[in-house]
């Protein structure tokens, strides 16, 4: 079952392997797993999804990227998010290569286009920090 914030939205529940990612977010940093052979990957997981070795390390990322794809959720497909509509859900292509899912905030949903440059922004929700993006 999803853990819900005091404002009702679902929060991530970090695991031992992913905890460092969420800890860094609390310090307003985006870090990514980096494999010495295959480079960056996302999301963090026990083994590199290219070579299945586990000698990867966390590396700081620039927090910059572009909109790979997006949608504007008009009805709140998550019943816990109906009070937030309309909101932008996007796949962000990070400068380092991997994609991550995030909301694009701080603009009218109609202003978002595929290919636009974005940068990470951080929102504290209870004791968790959510990484979102805004148009540059």
């Amino acid at each position, binding site marked *: *079952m*999803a853990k819900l914030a005091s404002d009702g*939205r*679902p*929060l*991530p*529940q*970090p*695991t031992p392997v*992913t905890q460092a990612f969420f800890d860094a977010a609390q310090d307003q940093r985006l870090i990514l797993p980096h494999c010495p052979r295959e480079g960056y990957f*996302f*999301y963090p*997981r026990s083994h590199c999804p290219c070579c299945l070795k586990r000698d990867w390390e966390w590396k700081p990322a620039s927090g910059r990227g572009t909109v*790979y*794809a*997006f*949608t*504007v*959720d*008009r*009805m*709140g*497909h*998550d*019943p816990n*998010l109906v009070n*937030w509509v309309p*909101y932008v*859900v*996007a*796949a962000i292509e990070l400068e380092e290569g991997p*994609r*991550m*899912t*995030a*909301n694009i905030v701080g603009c009218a*949903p109609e202003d978002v*286009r*595929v*290919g636009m440059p974005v940068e990470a922004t951080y929102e504290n929700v209870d004791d968790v920090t*959510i990484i979102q993006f805004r148009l540059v």
Partner: protein
Amino acid sequence: MGKRAAAIVGQTEWEPKREWDVPMFSMEASAQLASEVIADAGFEKGEIDGLVMNPIAESPMFGPSALAEYLGIQSNFNEVVDLGGSTPAGMVWRAAAAIEVGACESVLVLCPAVPPPRPTAQGKAKRGRARLTAYLGGDSWGSPQGQFEIPSGLVAATPSFAMIASRYREQYDVQPETLAKVAVEQRFNANAHPTAIFRDKPITIDDVLTSRMIADPIRLLELVMPCFGGGALLLTTAERAKRSPHRPVFVSGHGEHLTHKSVTYMPDMLDTPTRKAADRAFKMAGVSRGAIDIASIYDCFTITVLLTIEDAGFCKKGQGGAFIEEHDLRFNGDWPLNTHGGQLGMGQAGLAGGLSHITEAVLQLQNRAGKRQVKNANLAYVNGTGGMMAEQVALILEGA
């Protein structure tokens, strides 16, 4: 050409409904579906020696043994398939392959999609409408989706397919009218299907384009209606198929491909797993794209159909819009597509939604499609799509 080792000889399909009057357990529905499909094929129950099923709530573990016991079947092949919307297509080729290697002779493919009764102590079952849960199990402890997708609102299916559509439109400039044409022509087909949920309601391009925006750029009439229902198929050896009262339908080629769960991690959002699945299926069957008489393409959204037409090789990448505009996709048109109405017109009866594409192809190849019958239908392309353009299965079905 192609494989002619296993054939579909029986089918049954329940009318999709928004509400289900008589709640049934999956095993009860399976028993009824089995009884109907065995009768349709003209078989005896004692001949059945294989079961292919989806996970069932009454027996989350040991599903096949629970079902074999419940149905009283001495079974040689027992398979649980978990491929979302492409599960029925995945079931069909697994059954055919098991028959081909000699693991079994006659296999039931069972797709119940009905609500269970509630415990007696809690009173009469409350009737509710069919709907999908938003998280689809992605909020389980340890699930990457629970940590990296759900908190951003990437849940259910529509937002994921909307993302794909946003990128397609950016890259290839397809017009909303073109995608709407898919919904309109499939609705025309549904209007000729006696049990389609939208059998009585025609729609126009304008209706689609003015329907409510759900997740940009996907509008309400580009979505399927969630329903209850159910269906089943019976597959058997080429030898046993000869005595079926209906024309046997060979599974002459099949392919399956999978790369991701969340749409964000799809290697390329515009290059779907169907490309490899369809290439394998066509090669196995030894037939060309041009030889296909009817196409049954999984349609959770209109964009799914466009991408599948391209990636199955019926036209080049980026030409799907032009293909849709150039062809009449109605059952009486030059490129009959989803002649039952697809899920957009027929309704999506849960697990049985993806079966409807196969059932319709079987009915067409058996010359049993009534008003919708396509003349001289001998070869069908069937496509299943599961999850977020993730699990994809291609089948080539051929009338004997």
